[in-house]
């Protein structure tokens, strides 16, 4: 049916647009923060220019990860060759939810990673001697913050590839139930990574800042950062569990 084809394609394009646009807002703000802090600390301490520039570059590259995930999903949505003819409302909901999940799920982690990178640039400018320690700490913190965006990517890929086509003999009630459950799965992980991503970024940023001020306690700081970040992530994991349930229990 041509009408069916149209709305599945529409959902795919809409999902791609949401994914890229929402995540690029966050990526712009986060990376802009890193660049701003880097410029500030270069102005204050021009002699540590090289280290600050290097850490800015690396920090921005890692913060970009969430945006790249969204780009991959958007490309898959646009050129993935899904079965638009026989997909039905279920497929349309899953494609839209995939875009929503990865797009909104990238916002928090990218903000967080941006904050961590900015603080790292600030403290490297202050203490260029310890730039390697701070850089390593920043990388680990940003990777921890990005794990929640990896969760969003996982759910989004599962939405793309494991949701079957709508059965031909499905009633209207079944159709509504299944499509709405799929949308709920996408919304759950998409909104759920916002808080933990930002929170882990805060932890990593404070840790980088303190490592610049008290470089002797770097082991203790690293350990506390690990623990705090791991515990902050648990709500993102609850969201992952709920969206797995919504995906596979119905």
């Amino acid at each position, binding site marked *: 049916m041509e009408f069916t084809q149209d709305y599945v394609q529409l959902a795919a394009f809409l999902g791609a647009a949401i994914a890229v646009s929402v995540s690029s807002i966050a990526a712009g703000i986060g990376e802009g923060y890193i660049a701003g802090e880097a410029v500030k600390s270069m102005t204050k301490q021009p002699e540590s220019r090289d280290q600050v520039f290097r850490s800015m570059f690396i920090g921005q590259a890692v913060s970009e990860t969430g945006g790249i995930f969204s780009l991959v999903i958007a490309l898959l949505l646009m050129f993935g060759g899904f079965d638009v003819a026989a997909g039905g409302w279920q497929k349309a909901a899953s494609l839209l939810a995939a875009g929503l999940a990865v797009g909104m799920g990238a916002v928090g982690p990218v903000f967080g990673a941006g904050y961590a990178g900015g603080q790292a640039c600030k403290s490297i400018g202050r203490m260029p001697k310890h730039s390697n320690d701070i850089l390593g700490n920043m990388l680990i913190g940003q990777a921890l913050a990005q794990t929640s965006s990896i969760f969003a990517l996982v759910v989004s890929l599962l939405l793309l590839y494991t949701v079957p086509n709508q059965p031909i003999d499905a009633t209207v009630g079944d159709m509504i139930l299944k499509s709405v459950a799929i949308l709920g799965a996408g919304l759950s992980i998409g909104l759920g990574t916002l808080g933990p991503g930002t929170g882990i970024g805060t932890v990593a940023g404070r840790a980088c800042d303190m490592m610049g001020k008290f470089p002797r306690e770097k082991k203790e700081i690293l350990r506390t950062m690990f623990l705090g970040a791991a515990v902050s992530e648990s709500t993102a994991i*609850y969201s992952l569990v709920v969206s797995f349930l919504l995906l596979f229990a119905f």
Partner: protein
Amino acid sequence: MKKGSLKRVFLIFFVIEIVLLIISGGLTKDLEIGFEKSKFVVRHVEKHGDLQEKITEEFQPDEYLLETGERGKIHGSERIYDFFAKVFGKAHAISAFMLLRMLLIVNFIIILIAVLTKKLLFDRPSKPQVLFEMMYSFFEEFVQDTLGKNFIHFTPYIFTIFLFIWVCNMIGLVPIPGFMEPTRNLNVPMGIGIICILVVHATSIKVKGIWGHFKNYLNPIENPLFLLDIVGEVSKVVSISFRLFGNVLGGAIIMLVVSSLVKFIMFPVGLNLFFGIFVGTIQAFVFTMLALTYIGVEIGE
């Protein structure tokens, strides 16, 4: 390493394996994602016991297909498969079989490590001995910082958990078809998580006594939200195991999708470096630290 620790390490392994085997037959639903015969496979084992393949036609696997109840080709012994099919049902047989195979390989590697570091020399240590003594003393320091000097005997337990999860995460890097991380199967992290929480409670009972431990959970006057504490204990298992599972699964899916996008021409080295080595090590460490800190919070007064 102390003299008695090796025996203790083997004992802990034995317990972990038994719990894993029991659990892997017990969960009703499995989601398996693998890279078999250079094809991207997503298996979703349904409740009623049929193995269903739900994937776009490009990645259709031709083996291990159970649509008609017939079994496909399986490398290795068929008698073990039959045993699993009898015990767990046909749908679980393949996943349990592959999981067991991978766990045996992990076990073999760890026993190899134990054999390599068996001959302890004081004046002229071998290279593996230096490496693993460094790792051991690293963890001993953490245990001492968190639990105090009296609980230093927890180090073999903590180090075993780390080594097991770490080898499990690293084994996915080996480019042999059919090799997958056992931690990608939810049963494995769930089993280790259950063991960790049981150890926490057992230690707490040992330190505080039975009433001292259950006071928190069974006293509605002092603690009106005691039901939520029980939910919190269950959610500890969920969060500690799903964190590991989600990260490993995520890395695996991303690598598979990227390598399928480039048509398996180029092995994604950078992604393997990040998701395989970096994330695998960090998540193994986080799991271990959480298992340690839960004990520390429970007994620390």
